[in-house]
C-alpha cells in the first residue's frame, strides 16, 4: 500500500524524470550529435583510427569555437548548432559494429554517423543504415563494392574508392617515362591487398601492355617476417615492386627490404604509404613513389593554390596539438566533416533553418560538392552517393637540413582522370582502357 510519503516521492521522481527528459530534448535543437566510429585499438588504430579521430576532434573543436577557419567554414558549428561527438571503437568485427551502429542510432539518437575504416564494416553497415533510415557517412574505407554492387538511400562515402590509388600510380610511372619491362607485387592477403593488386595490374595492362607481370606475393596480414618474400623479389629482379601494405606490415616490409637493398634493385611504389613517414623518418628510403589515397598529407602541404589557407590552418593546428604532421587519415576525416557541415547547412537553407531530418540530410548530400584540405570533393558516382576527389603521387626525399621527409616531383591528378565515370564499375573501366577519363 502506498503511503503519503512514497506518493510524494513518486510524484517528485516523475517531475524530475520529466524535467530530465525535457532538458536534453530542448538542447537537441541547439546541438548536432555525430557518432564517430573508427579504430581506437588494434592494428589499424595507430595508422588510421587514432590520427583520424585526433583530426576529427580538432576540427569539431575549431568549428564549435567559430571563426577559426577560412570561409565558407568560418561559421560556428553546423548552421549555428553546436557539434557533439560520441566516439566508438571500430575494433571487434562487423557483427559487433552492426550492434554499435544500432546503439548509436537508437539509444544515443545521433543525428549522423561518420565512420568505418574497415571495408568489411563498410559492407555490413549500409543495409542496416537504410533499414533504420539513419544518415551515414563512410569516411575512409576503400572497397569499390559498397556502391558498385548495391545502392543505398541514406549512405554516402565522402572519400574516393581505392581504384584511384593504383590508377594514379600507373599514370605517375607513365608521365615520368619510367621504363617498366616487368613488375611484381607484395600485398596483404585480404580484400584490400588483393583488390589493390588487381587494380594496379589492370591499370598497368593499359598503360604498359608489354610489361611482364612477375611474382605476386600475398603474405598474411600481420606477417611481420618478409625475408623469404624479399629474397623472391630480389631473385626475380622486377623493374618495380608494388605494395598497398599499411601500418606495421608496411613498416616491417620497408625496414627489412631496405636493409637488403631491394629499393636499389627495384623501384618501390606504395599505393597508400604516406602514413608511415612520421614513424620511419629517415629510415624511409629516398626515391620511393608513394600515394596517400588523395591529395593528403605531404602532397596537400606542397600543393598551394586556392586551398592553401584552409590546408595550412588545419596543418598548423594539427602539428601544434599532436606534435606531428597530419597524414592521410585526418584528411579523410576532415573532408567528411566539412561535407557534413555543407550538407547540414544546405538542408537548413532549404527547410527554413530548422535542424534537418535524415531524409533532408540525404537529399542535401546527394550530388553535393565542397572544398576540403584534400581538394574539391564531388559526390559524382553512384547516383550522388560516392565521392571522387583529386589524387597525387610523389617521390620521397629526406631533407637533411630540416630533418624532415619531403615529397618531390609531385604530380596532381584531376578526379575525373583517375576515377571511373558514373555508371561504370571500376573493373570494367580498367579493362576497357579508362573510357571517359579527363586528364587534361
Amino acid at each position, binding site marked *: 500500500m502506498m503511503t503519503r510519503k512514497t506518493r510524494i516521492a513518486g510524484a517528485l521522481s516523475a517531475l524530475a524524470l520529466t524535467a530530465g527528459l525535457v532538458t536534453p530534448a530542448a538542447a537537441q535543437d541547439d546541438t548536432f550529435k555525430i557518432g564517430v566510429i573508427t579504430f*581506437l*585499438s*588494434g*592494428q589499424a*588504430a*595507430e595508422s588510421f583510427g*587514432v590520427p583520424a579521430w585526433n583530426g576529427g576532434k580538432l576540427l569539431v573543436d575549431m568549428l564549435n569555437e567559430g571563426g577559426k577557419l577560412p570561409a565558407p567554414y568560418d561559421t560556428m558549428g553546423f548552421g549555428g548548432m553546436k557539434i557533439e561527438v560520441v566516439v566508438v571503437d571500430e575494433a571487434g568485427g562487423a557483427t559487433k559494429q552492426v550492434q554499435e551502429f544500432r546503439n548509436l542510432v537508437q539509444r544515443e539518437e545521433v543525428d549522423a554517423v561518420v565512420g568505418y575504416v574497415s571495408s568489411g564494416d563498410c559492407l555490413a553497415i549500409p543495409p542496416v543504415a537504410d533499414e533504420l533510415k539513419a544518415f551515414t557517412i563512410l569516411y575512409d574505407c576503400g572497397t569499390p563494392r559498397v556502391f558498385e554492387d548495391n545502392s543505398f538511400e541514406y549512405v554516402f562515402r565522402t572519400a574516393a574508392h581505392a581504384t584511384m590509388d593504383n590508377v594514379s600510380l600507373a599514370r605517375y610511372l607513365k608521365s615520368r617515362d619510367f621504363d617498366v619491362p616487368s613488375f611484381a607485387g607484395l600485398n596483404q*592477403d585480404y580484400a584490400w591487398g588483393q583488390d589493390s593488386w588487381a587494380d594496379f595490374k589492370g591499370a598497368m595492362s593499359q598503360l604498359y601492355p608489354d610489361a611482364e607481370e612477375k*611474382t*605476386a*606475393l*600475398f*603474405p*598474411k596480414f*600481420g*606477417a*611481420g*617476417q618478409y*625475408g*623469404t*618474400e624479399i*629474397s*623472391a623479389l*630480389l*631473385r626475380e629482379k622486377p623493374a618495380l615492386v608494388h605494395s598497398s601494405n599499411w*601500418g*606495421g606490415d608496411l*613498416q*616491417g616490409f620497408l*625496414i*627489412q627490404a631496405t*636493409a*637488403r*637493398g631491394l629499393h636499389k634493385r627495384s623501384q618501390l611504389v606504395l599505393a597508400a604509404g604516406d602514413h608511415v613517414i612520421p*614513424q*620511419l623518418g629517415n*629510415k624511409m628510403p629516398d626515391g620511393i613513389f608513394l600515394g596517400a589515397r588523395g591529395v593528403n598529407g605531404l602532397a596537400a602541404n606542397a600543393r598551394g593554390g586556392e586551398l592553401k589557407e584552409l590546408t595550412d590552418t588545419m596543418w598548423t593546428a594539427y602539428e601544434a596539438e599532436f606534435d606531428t604532421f597530419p597524414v592521410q587519415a585526418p584528411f579523410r576525416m576532415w573532408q567528411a566533416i566539412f561535407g557534413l557541415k555543407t550538407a547540414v547547412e544546405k538542408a537548413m537553407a532549404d527547410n527554413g533553418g530548422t535542424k534537418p531530418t535524415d531524409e533532408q540530410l540525404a537529399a542535401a548530400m546527394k550530388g553535393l560538392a565542397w572544398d576540403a584540405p584534400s581538394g574539391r570533393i564531388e559526390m559524382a558516382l553512384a547516383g550522388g552517393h560516392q565521392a571522387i576527389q583529386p589524387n597525387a603521387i610523389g617521390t620521397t626525399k629526406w631533407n637533411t637540413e630540416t630533418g624532415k621527409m619531403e615529397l618531390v616531383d609531385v604530380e596532381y591528378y584531376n578526379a575525373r582522370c583517375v576515377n571511373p565515370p558514373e555508371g561504370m564499375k571500376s573493373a570494367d573501366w580498367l579493362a576497357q582502357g579508362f573510357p571517359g577519363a579527363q586528364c587534361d
Partner: protein
Amino acid sequence: MDLVATILVDGLIYAGWLFIVSVGLTLVFGVLNILNIAHGSLYAIGAYASASLVGAYFAAGGDAFPYGSYIAMILAAVLVAVVLGPLLERGLLRYFYGRDEVLNVLVTYAVFLILEDVMKLIWGVNPYFVYEPYTLLGTVEMGSLFYVGYDFAVIAAAIIVGLAVWLTLNRTQTGKVVLAVIHDAEISQTMGVNVKRIYLGAFMAGAFLAALGGALTAPMISVTPGLGVNVVIVAFAVVIIGGLGSVPGAAIGALMVGISRAASVHLLPEAELFIIYFVMAIVLVFRPEGLFAKTQARKI
C-alpha cells in the same frame, strides 16, 4: 644464387626464429602438460620490452658501443621471464594442474586476452622501433642476393638455444630431474623432488624463450599490438609436427615449416599459408602424435 640454395637459406632463417619461439612452448607442455596460448603474449611482451630497453640504451648514449644493444635484448627477455613467469605460474596456472587440458587451454587463452590489453595499457597503440641492432652486423652477399647479417645471428641464437636446452635436459642433474617429472610427477615427488620448483623453473624457461623470440624479432619489425596472435598459431603447428613436448621435434618441425614455406613463396606463392598446415596434416596422418612424441596408452 641457385634457387635451391636460396630456399634453404630463407627456410633456415625462418626456421631459426620459429624454433626459438616453439621450443619454449613445447618445453612448457612437456613439463606442465599445459598448452600455453599465452605464449604468444609473452613473445609480444618480449618484443615490447626489447624495444623499450634498447631504446633506453641508445638514449643513454649507447651509440658509443652499439653492440651492447644485444645484451639489452637478452636482458629484456630475462626481465619478462622473471616478472611474468612466477606471476602466471604461481599466481594462476598451479591451480589448474591435473585438470582437463581443454580447461587449461581456455585459462591460458584468457591470460592471452588479458595480457593483450595490459600491453596496450603499458605501451599504448603506437608502434615502437629499434632498427639499430638489425643493421649493426652488416649484409652478407650470397650470389646475387644480399642477406642481413642479423638473420644469420638469429640462426646462431637458435642453435645455441637448442643445444642449451638439450644439454640441460640430458647432461645435467637438474635436467634428469626435469625428465623424471615429465615422466611421472607423482612418483618424482615421492622420491623427494621439489616438483613445484621444477614447474616454476620450466615455465620461466618457456617464458624466457618466448620473450627471447620477441626480443630478437623487435629490431626487424614495428612492434604493435596484436603481434603475438600469428606467432602462436605457427608455433603450434611446429610443435604439433614435431610432437608436443619434444625439443628435437620442435627443431625438425621448425625446419620443415621454414623450408616448405620458403619453397612455396619462391615456387607457388598462392600456397604459402596452405603449405604449413598441409605439412602438418601429412605428418599427423602418418604420426598422429607428431614426429617425436612417444606413443602413449589411451585411457579408457
